């Protein structure tokens, strides 16, 4: 296969790499090399995105708070996060005397690996997709729910009362909100008729699901946004950290690069849920198409899919940052009430409603 590269369709490019690797070496080694390549690409992407998101959050929160934000290191303070990263790398790792050493060391890695695993299933653009299997949505749900183990272990092993309270809160919170996230995704799976993320994206060729499934899809999106914010432990659901109550909650005792892992994982989880929302509700990399408007559709097609994907993800992240920096924090009982008494029943009814709409063919 000849080398060809197009920003509109990565399929031929990725297939060219795949084919040339398999032609050059035995299948086992080709697979290993592919894994290593993907791992390195994702690591680099992960680090860059983390740095960028930290910078973006700082600038956005500064904008909301009548401040300037980082503006000293580099142009517009762009190097600030890199300087911070270097600082965190050089900082001493403080060991706590009575902490459970193994669990204390393992916890940050669990948190970061989990967010790393889930990203593999996200379709970034046409053909730019590390793993495309038939239970993509299910896989993401399963993997991302393991993050709570890391948080619980971090809180428990630190041997700190504040950390323990934070971890327990976080456990209750993530386990509860997992349900809503799952159910709101299932609503769209019902509409799409598939759990494979590439099929879900392809299904939105004529119209994005949020418009296609009208009312239930919009409800599902709002529920997903609330529940996924809670799942990533971000404000106004940042009870596990709850700075004013529990100092820093489950990661109070962590320092240096271990703290940076928790910090980075938070941003990556935010990117993850934003990209899932973009993929499932807003068409992923699919440009905005309206049935019948051929000229308009052609103009939209002119914008490369990768920009569509990141544009949508960043927009959803911006919404999440917006309400983080506006709302006060909920209390733990209010948080659980919101989930079990409101979101979950709404969601269950919503799934039925969506099933009805799909059966009757009422969607667009």
């Amino acid at each position, binding site marked *: 296969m000849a080398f060809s590269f197009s920003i509109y369709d990565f399929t031929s490019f990725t297939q060219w790499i795949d084919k040339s690797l398999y032609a050059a070496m035995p299948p086992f080694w080709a697979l290993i090399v592919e894994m290593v390549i993907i791992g390195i690409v994702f690591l680099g992407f992960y680090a860059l995105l983390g740095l960028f998101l930290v910078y973006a959050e700082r600038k956005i929160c500064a904008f909301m708070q009548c401040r300037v934000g980082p503006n000293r290191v580099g142009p517009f303070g762009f190097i600030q996060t890199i300087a911070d990263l270097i600082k965190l790398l050089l900082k001493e790792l403080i060991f706590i005397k009575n902490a459970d050493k193994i669990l204390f060391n393992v916890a940050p890695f669990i948190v970061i690996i989990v967010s790393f695993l889930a990203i593999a299933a996200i379709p970034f653009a046409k053909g730019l997709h590390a793993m495309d299997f038939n239970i993509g949505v299910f896989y993401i749900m399963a993997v991302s729910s393991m993050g709570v183990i890391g948080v619980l272990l971090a809180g428990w092993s630190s041997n700190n009362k504040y950390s323990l309270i934070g971890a327990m809160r976080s456990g209750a919170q993530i386990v509860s909100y997992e349900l809503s996230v799952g159910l709101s995704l299932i609503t769209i799976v019902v509409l799409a008729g598939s759990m494979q993320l590439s099929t879900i994206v392809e299904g939105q060729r004529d119209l994005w699901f949020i418009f296609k499934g009208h009312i239930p899809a919009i409800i599902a999106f709002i529920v997903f946004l609330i529940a996924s914010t809670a799942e990533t432990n971000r404000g106004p659901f940042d009870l596990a950290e709850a700075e*004013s109550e529990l100092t820093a909650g489950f990661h109070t005792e962590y320092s240096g690069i271990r703290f940076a892992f928790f910090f980075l994982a938070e941003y990556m989880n935010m990117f993850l849920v934003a990209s899932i929302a973009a993929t499932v509700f807003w068409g992923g990399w699919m440009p905005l198409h309206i049935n019948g408007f051929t000229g308009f559709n052609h103009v939209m097609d002119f914008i490369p899919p990768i920009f569509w994907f990141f544009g949508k993800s960043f927009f959803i992240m911006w919404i999440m940052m917006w309400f983080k920096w506006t*709302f006060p924090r909920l209390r733990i009982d209010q948080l659980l009430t919101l989930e079990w008494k409101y979101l979950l029943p709404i969601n269950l009814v919503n799934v039925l409603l969506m099933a009805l709409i799909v059966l009757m063919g009422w969607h667009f």
Partner: protein
Amino acid sequence: MAEILEVKDIAQQEYLINMGPQHPSTHGVMRLVVSLNGEIVKNVQPHCGYIHRGIEKMCEKLTYPQIIHLTDRMDYLSAHMNNASVCLTVEKALGIEIPERVKYIRTIMDELQRIASHQLWWCAFGMDLGGLTCFFYGLRDREPILDIFEESTGSRLIQSYYTPGGLMNDIHPDFQKKVKEFIKYFRKILPEYDQLLTGNVIFQERTKGIGILSKEEAINRGLTGPSGRGSGFACDVRKRAPYHLYDKVDFKECLYEEGDTFARYKVRIDEMWESMKIIEQLIDNIPEGDYTAKMKAVIKLPEGEFFQRVETARGELICFIVSDGNKNPLRVKFRSPNLINLASLNVMSKDFKIADLVAISGSLDLVIPCMDR
């Protein structure tokens, strides 16, 4: 621990956590030993004294004009009112009539200080509840007041502006203009506070019905200031025992009957409006004249006991001076509103969640250096 604890005993032990001396929500070096049952607060035991400087004892070795400078360091957010408590006591003891101009300026300064203090309380309270943006909004609007203070008094936080008999120096020529500008600006900006925090569903859920203190309990425990008025206890010294010009100006005593955190919050927001009203009534009518009454070089109080109540931004501050006729007092006692308001914390926060404890202690607006003195 000599005796061996059985598993049964451990299960019944309370989960004790130390909030403070260094904790983000105590706003200073106060320690709260909190007994928890899960998330529910069973008992709160405050430990103070981490910033005790013995101000009352130090006063015994100082002359009256020198004492003023120590009072700033008690409740640094209502420095003017603290100064006023000593100045008014001394003036009362000596029986001096102070110029009208001084009274006007003192009233305006006190009210500006009250607004600044409530602004800082508002931002810290928002931050206690997790709304970090409030902090910057409050500080942004507090800045013009501090600039006004800086121009006239030469200092931003601890001004020591009042002296027995008058003021340290006259107001800056721009004072009136700047104050009017600020009032115009703040009247526009204060509804923004409501938009950001007061109307928020989460905020209302977090504060309504939380930390209820009945009127009887508030009176019994001597809860004064905005916190007391949130319980319906009409304890505003400006109304009950007017000093400065408070009997001449028209303002409302903000009272709420609910006694919960939200009521205490509303009292402070309303008080900012009332303070602006007071300033507006006075700012154009400052009479010409001396900025201080004629005082002797060495102030000696007659033998006896003197006291004066003032309303600081946190409650009723009483300065009590016992004099033996010397140039320094025999004994000085300050009734700090913070220490006495703290006494209600345990009653208020019992059986609420730990997050509510933060909200309740935030709504009491405690300034720790005033508590410990």
